[in-house]
């Protein structure tokens, strides 16, 4: 293609509903009158060649079936009567003829034309039924997943539920467009059977921009559904906890609550992978509805002390979950969900032991579960939620103070 020809190529947003034959024909004719002559139909755009404005007749016809797989016979046949083949899109092909050529109308028998779209209607019906079945399966699976999930609020904060909701919306949109295309073709066929010809001058403007808006919205939604797992994968950081307890990681540190100089870090070879000590590590995760989120685990040992039950050298450990949310409204529900998740009756050491809410002006919500050497604390302050599980003999108040300090520094 020479430069001059390239300059004359114009792209225009095409009507979204490919099955609205009359609107397409009318659009091509209107643009031809403005000097834009159709060359090719793309997914979203149609390519035109700029030339002399000309009154043209455009007709969209069904691409032939297996008896004429390349459509060559149809092209040759129509050409004899003055109709030039332009391009093909999906199951349709476009023909044109200048007004002054007085080419005979392509279809003169509506009932016969109805036969030409019979196969298309059947294909669209089967596709729609298949799409509906798939969408129904996905929707049922998603809902089951929500019901089975023991931490639905956390799932929401992480972005999983929102991603699934977007996905369902996109799938419902696909199902609706599929149903609409099937119904439109069925209606067209019935109209033709009843003798109503296609309106070659059907108005196209309003609908074109409306459906484009909807298509763009759902394309963005579909893109966002992909974005959430990408962010989750790329923005997650895992590392060994620094020995310095004054580091900026907003979790409760073992040394802070043990307050014993003899405490050493307990590192086991089996737990060191890819230079990360999984006995003493933290993970910072990207969550859609949180500013930051940290999960840490720390194990220590005091070689000169043993557990009270004589089971071995005293080795306290702590795990800590901390989420700094975007919305305060989710903080207490998340705390309560963690309590019911981590504090399930079967997980508690002794029957009858439950989380007990405590009043503390430093927190909006504070709940503590204590038993022999195990301590679980869930605390909320504004948008910050922390859940600490600790095994050891440190004083409960030490842990609560450490949580308050961590919240203050976040």
């Amino acid at each position: 293609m020479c430069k001059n020809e390239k300059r004359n190529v114009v792209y225009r947003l095409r009507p979204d509903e490919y099955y609205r034959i009359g609107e397409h024909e009318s659009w091509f004719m209107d643009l031809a009158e403005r000097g834009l002559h159709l060359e090719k139909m793309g997914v979203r755009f149609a390519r035109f060649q700029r030339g002399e404005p000309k009154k043209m007749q455009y007709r969209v016809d069904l691409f032939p079936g297996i008896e004429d797989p390349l459509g060559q016979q149809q092209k040759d046949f129509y050409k004899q009567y003055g109709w030039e083949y332009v391009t093909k899109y999906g199951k349709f092909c476009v023909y044109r003829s200048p007004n002054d050529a007085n080419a005979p109308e392509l279809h003169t028998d509506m009932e016969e034309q109805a036969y030409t779209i019979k196969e298309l209607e059947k294909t669209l019906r089967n596709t729609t039924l298949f799409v509906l079945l798939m969408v129904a399966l996905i929707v049922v699976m998603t809902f089951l997943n929500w019901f089975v999930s023991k931490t639905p609020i956390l799932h929401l904060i992480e972005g999983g539920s929102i991603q699934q909701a977007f996905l369902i919306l996109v799938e419902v949109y696909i199902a609706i467009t599929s149903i609409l295309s099937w119904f439109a073709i069925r209606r067209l066929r019935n109209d033709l059977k009843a003798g109503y010809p296609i309106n070659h001058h059907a108005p196209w403007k309003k609908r074109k921009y409306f459906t484009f808006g909807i298509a763009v919205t759902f394309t963005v939604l579909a893109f966002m559904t992909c974005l959430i797992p990408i962010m989750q994968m790329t923005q997650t950081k895992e590392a060994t906890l620094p020995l310095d307890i004054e580091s900026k990681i907003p979790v409760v540190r073992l040394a802070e609550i043990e307050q014993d100089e003899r405490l050493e870090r307990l590192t086991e070879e089996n737990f060191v992978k890819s230079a990360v000590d999984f006995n003493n590590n933290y993970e910072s995760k990207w969550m859609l509805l949180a500013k930051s989120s940290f999960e840490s685990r720390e194990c220590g040992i005091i070689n000169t002390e043993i557990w009270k039950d004589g089971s071995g050298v005293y080795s306290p450990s702590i795990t800590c979950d901390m989420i700094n949310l975007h919305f305060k409204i989710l903080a207490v529900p998340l705390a309560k969900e963690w309590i019911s998740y981590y504090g399930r009756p079967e997980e508690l050491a002794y029957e009858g032991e439950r989380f007990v809410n405590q009043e503390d002006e430093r927190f909006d919500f504070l709940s503590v579960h204590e038993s022999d050497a195990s301590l679980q604390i869930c605390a909320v302050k504004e948008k910050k939620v922390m859940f600490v599980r600790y095994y050891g003999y440190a004083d409960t108040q030490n842990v609560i103070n450490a949580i308050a300090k961590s919240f203050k520094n976040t």
Partner: protein
Amino acid sequence: MPYAGGPMTEAMYYVLVALLNPNHGYQLMSAVTEVSKGRVHMGPGTLYGVLGRMQKDELISLSDDDGRRKTYTITEAGKVALKREYERLKALIEDGVEIENVQE
């Protein structure tokens, strides 16, 4: 669904009538206009569609195909179907003969 008897479309009927004399696609259009005494002007889309459909239903067949020009002819099954349709249309006319006396 293949043709299983019953009313034909106008296009089917006229193409079958025109093909009582083998003819090729391009000339068929004028042949149809001729046998309908100028009443029916069949479009190329309609003609292309009806030829393909009737060939599939074995009502017509290709008697000659030199690549550029295809000559179609009516088959025995096509003749039987056309005769039946003719009888049916004739019966329709006879049954409605009273309409001649209706004042518009």
